[in-house]
């Protein structure tokens, strides 16, 4: 039983409303319920497959406009992040030292492939748009 229906019955029991009014309120709740459910899109979202980078540069130097259109499969990114687990321990230590010296205290050995994979999963929600007079850049997943 929903909270609102319980409230209506409670008001009826306390004598705040009549039986007819309670019936009307419950009928109104029944009418609203299916509409509320249908408002929520329950279909599963299609998983993005590709990372797209589109760059458009208008004709500024009489060479004609430039256009770059790159499509990278997310599967390739997933395989790429697994490379991180293959970095030799000595190289990780040296990279950590260099990062610390540059003021970026990140421990690369703490980066787990699962975390990076989760990061890629959420790339689907990402859209980057840069709109400048001399160039337009659009990065998104599809």
């Amino acid at each position, binding site marked *: 039983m929903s909270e609102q229906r319980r409230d209506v019955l409670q008001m009826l029991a306390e004598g705040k409303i009549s039986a007819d009014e309670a019936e009307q309120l419950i009928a109104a709740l029944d009418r609203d319920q299916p509409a509320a459910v249908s408002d929520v899109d329950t279909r599963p979202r299609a998983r993005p*497959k*590709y990372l797209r980078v589109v760059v458009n540069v208008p*004709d500024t130097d009489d*060479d*004609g*406009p*430039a*256009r*770059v*259109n*790159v*499509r*990278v*499969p997310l*599967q*390739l*990114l*997933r*395989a*790429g992040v*697994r*490379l991180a*687990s*293959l970095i*030799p*321990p*000595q190289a990780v230590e040296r990279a950590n030292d260099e990062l610390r010296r540059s003021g970026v205290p990140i421990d690369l050995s703490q980066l787990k492939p699962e975390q990076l994979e989760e990061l890629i999963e959420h790339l689907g929600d990402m859209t980057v748009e840069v709109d400048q007079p001399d160039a337009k850049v659009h990065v998104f997943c599809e």
Partner: protein
Amino acid sequence: MMPQLITISIRPPQHKAFRLWVPLLPLLLVLSPVLVIALIAGVVACIGYRINPGRALWTAWRLLCGLRGTRVDVEHGRTAVLVAIR
């Protein structure tokens, strides 16, 4: 599944465009003697750097398979380059 075909299309500004289709499987078969040597060198390097060679080979295979669907299309004026991996 590994990629089957690489398409390279180049359109120079003053010349006629040409398109090249490279079937990957026959190419790998032709290059197989070189690939075997590269594989052995890779395994030796992995052992030298204390990396699991099986894991490294699996990752390299996944990278190769992940290339399927890659497309790079660059146009500048009358010049255009397209690389598509299918």
